[in-house]
């Protein structure tokens, strides 16, 4: 018994030491939508370039925090953490869309948009449901220009893919890329003028 009493604090300490608290960082859907709208409007030429101070990368690759952060705590800290965690969970982080790489991609896309716009309007090019664009009706493109448009589409898609990756990385969550892509896929369409075409599960639809 005496031995147990002597060892009890140690056992309790070890138990507390192994107690684990998990902080879940959820994808900030509303903030992402807002950020996507700002970037898309800039690319579409509907809004002036974002002049806010860029919140660049917080850490190089490999240092980003994951979506789930396990913390091992001593019992004395549990109460403190319990107090801290609710606001941490409730917090909706903003989405950063202004790193040098994002700015370069955005600038290239904005410039390219001027060349692509007539083809969106004519229905030659449409938006797919994966955040990219595609040639919808090649017949609407002058024969001599077909490869030039194909090149524009290819370059745009390469930049869009890089953009989704960079936004996820710039926000310290590479695993968010798919959600960012989904958000953009919806917002490219939502911000597009009437008459442009977009792809659904059932095929092409004119907005």
């Amino acid at each position, binding site marked *: 018994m005496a031995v147990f009493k002597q060892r009890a604090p140690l056992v309790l300490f070890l138990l507390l030491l192994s107690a684990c608290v998990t902080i879940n960082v959820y994808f900030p859907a509303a903030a992402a939508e807002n950020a996507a709208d700002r970037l898309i409007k800039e690319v579409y030429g509907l809004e002036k370039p974002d002049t806010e101070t860029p919140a660049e*990368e917080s850490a*190089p690759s490999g240092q980003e925090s994951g979506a789930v952060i396990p913390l091992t705590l001593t019992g004395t800290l549990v109460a403190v953490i319990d107090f801290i965690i609710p606001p941490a969970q409730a917090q909706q982080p903003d989405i950063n869309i202004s790193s040098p790489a994002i700015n370069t991609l955005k600038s290239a896309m904005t410039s390219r948009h001027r060349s692509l716009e007539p083809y969106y309007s004519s229905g030659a090019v449409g938006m797919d449901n994966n955040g990219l664009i595609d040639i919808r009706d090649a017949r609407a493109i002058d024969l001599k220009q077909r490869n030039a448009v194909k090149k524009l589409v290819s370059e745009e898609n390469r930049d869009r893919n890089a953009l989704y990756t960079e936004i996820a990385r710039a926000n310290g969550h590479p695993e968010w890329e798919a959600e960012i892509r989904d958000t953009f896929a919806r917002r490219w369409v939502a911000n597009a003028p009437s008459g442009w075409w977009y792809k659904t599960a059932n095929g092409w639809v004119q907005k």
Partner: protein
Amino acid sequence: MKKVLTPIIRLLCPAILFMITPVVTIAIDLADLSIESVESESIRIRDLRTEFEFQDVDQLQVRFQAGSITVVDLGELVDVAVRCNATLLNDATLMCSSGTVSAVHEQLGAVTGSLSFHLRDDYRPRQLAMDLQIGSTGSLKAGYSHDNSNTELHIDADHIALQPFVPLLQSRIPALADHDITSGVVGGMARLNGTTDRFTVIEAEIKLNDFSLEGANVLEQTDLAVSLNARRENDNWLFNSDARVVAGVMYLIPGFEVFDDSPGFYIDATEEGLQLALTGRVETGFSKLALESFAYSHGDLLHLKGRALIELADSPFVEHLELYVDALDLAGIYPVYVQPLLLPTNFADLDLAGALQLDLRYAGNELTRLGLQLKDVYLDDDLQRFSVSGLNSDLFIGESQQMRVSSLDWGALSLYKIIFGTGDITLLSGKNRIEVVDWQDVDLLDGRLLINQLALSGIGSDDFSLSLHGELTPISLKNFTQTMGWPLMSGRLSGIIEDFEYRGGDLRINGDLKFRVFDGDVILQGLVIENLFERNARFYTDVVIDNLDLEQVTGTFSFGRIEGSLDGHIRKLTLLDWQPVYFDAVLKSPDDDERPHRISQKALDNLSEIGGGLSGALSKGFLRFVDEYSYGRLGLRCLLSNGVCNLGGIEQTGDGFYIMTRGGLLPPWVDVKATGRSIIWKDLVNGLKRIAEGEIAFE
């Protein structure tokens, strides 16, 4: 034609023969048969009237009239009239040696001409011949004969509009099923011979003028001529064919895939005509196409020939290919034939010139032989990432184990802004491998890249890699910085390059990259550039700075002179789009610095001004009239993150930190203390730029 006529003949012949057969003893002078409508799967006849008027016991006049005849895939003929003086032969067959035909087609216009036929006793035609004028300009002569062992069909046509035949062509030629012929006239001849049940020999020469096709493949106002000789042996067709296009433009999608894309080629045949010659065999059931030889030429621009075996199953694929390409004018070829292949890649904006010869073999899904001869090739990337001129190669990767000597040399080479001189590499190549056996050191600005070891692998594949160990002899920093568009620096730069590797679009230096500069060393450790040629290139490295001479460093810029040494590191330096986004830098005086520690008035003022965010508190007072001061130690830390540089110094104080501490041998002494803790990185850079450009004058 046979298919169209057969139902009519079969329908009418029993009636005809019933009325004219010699066994019938009833004397009939005139037989008149009127039917309002006759329909089958492929034909519909309205207001049919057939008259047989006997001139003699075996002579009769046949008159056939129809209000309209609609044939599936051929459209409608109206006011159809056929008239013929026929002879009833002893073998119960009917012969018409001189008849006339007239009708009006909805698209072709009036169709008039002569007709002759000989019907067998089984109602099938033994012989049929027509000579028709179609519309105002077209003509068609057709002849068909059939006996117990032989069938012949010959057609001669001239200037017949193609559009009325579009549905027929679409139903018979699968490749046209999803295309529209929007214009064109056809002429030429076809001769078909065969047995009673199938044709075995085909000869044809067809000319199409003003031929336009709409669909995935497009032809606009093309003039083309096709000749075909084909012979059936067992179940295979042996053929040779020649096609020439002499006018018009085309957009062709051959159907093969490169970089997960089906490239399309825009070809203008007006100035340089095209020719395609094929000899080969189509195997049973169109299951396999064996091209024993093919040759394609586009004027003097491109000559291509070879052999191929193509599976024509559900998903056609090339089983075996031997290809020899002779491209004498790469500048002309690039936009037509090369750029379309590169559109999905990041290398589609090139200027290309020179000549190329290619000899390749492909079998079993892999390249088994590659011979590449480049002659005075010039290649320049429009995005200014790389260029090469005077490139020659005699590169060969063979099928045998025997190694063969190849070579690669160039006159000048650039990578981004770095310009290299002449290079010459000798290679030893064999089956699936290539070794570098000799090379020439390469000039780099006013220095030289001494190459100790060089290896290439996976040439021509996605797995291409280059590894290099070498040494850089001193080059002037002035030249280097001028080339890079950076502020001019003085001094010289030299270094050892260990284990440099380029693979899969990433550049990696597995060892250290050491530069001797400003009488000290700068060592880049673990340098990696991800996506070297992409817009989102990422640069990572750690930097160690050892014992730089500050007097040389500051003498390079318009910063003002500081004497002393500088040690430090930049950890996890990360560049995106070649701009720093993260690093942890510490620059400081070494503990045992042997150089004197002196700072000029100008440098002192600049230290206090850079960035504007530093609230410097200079301990100078009346000393501002002195030109030079002594200092103890100098040190600055910047942790760049989120666009903000978090600052630290050589020594902390309660309300700030010292960038420079008091000390040194000779008075007057000076220290510099900062009270700010952070500065926006862009402000800091702009401040330094203004100082470098002399925008801010302190003296």
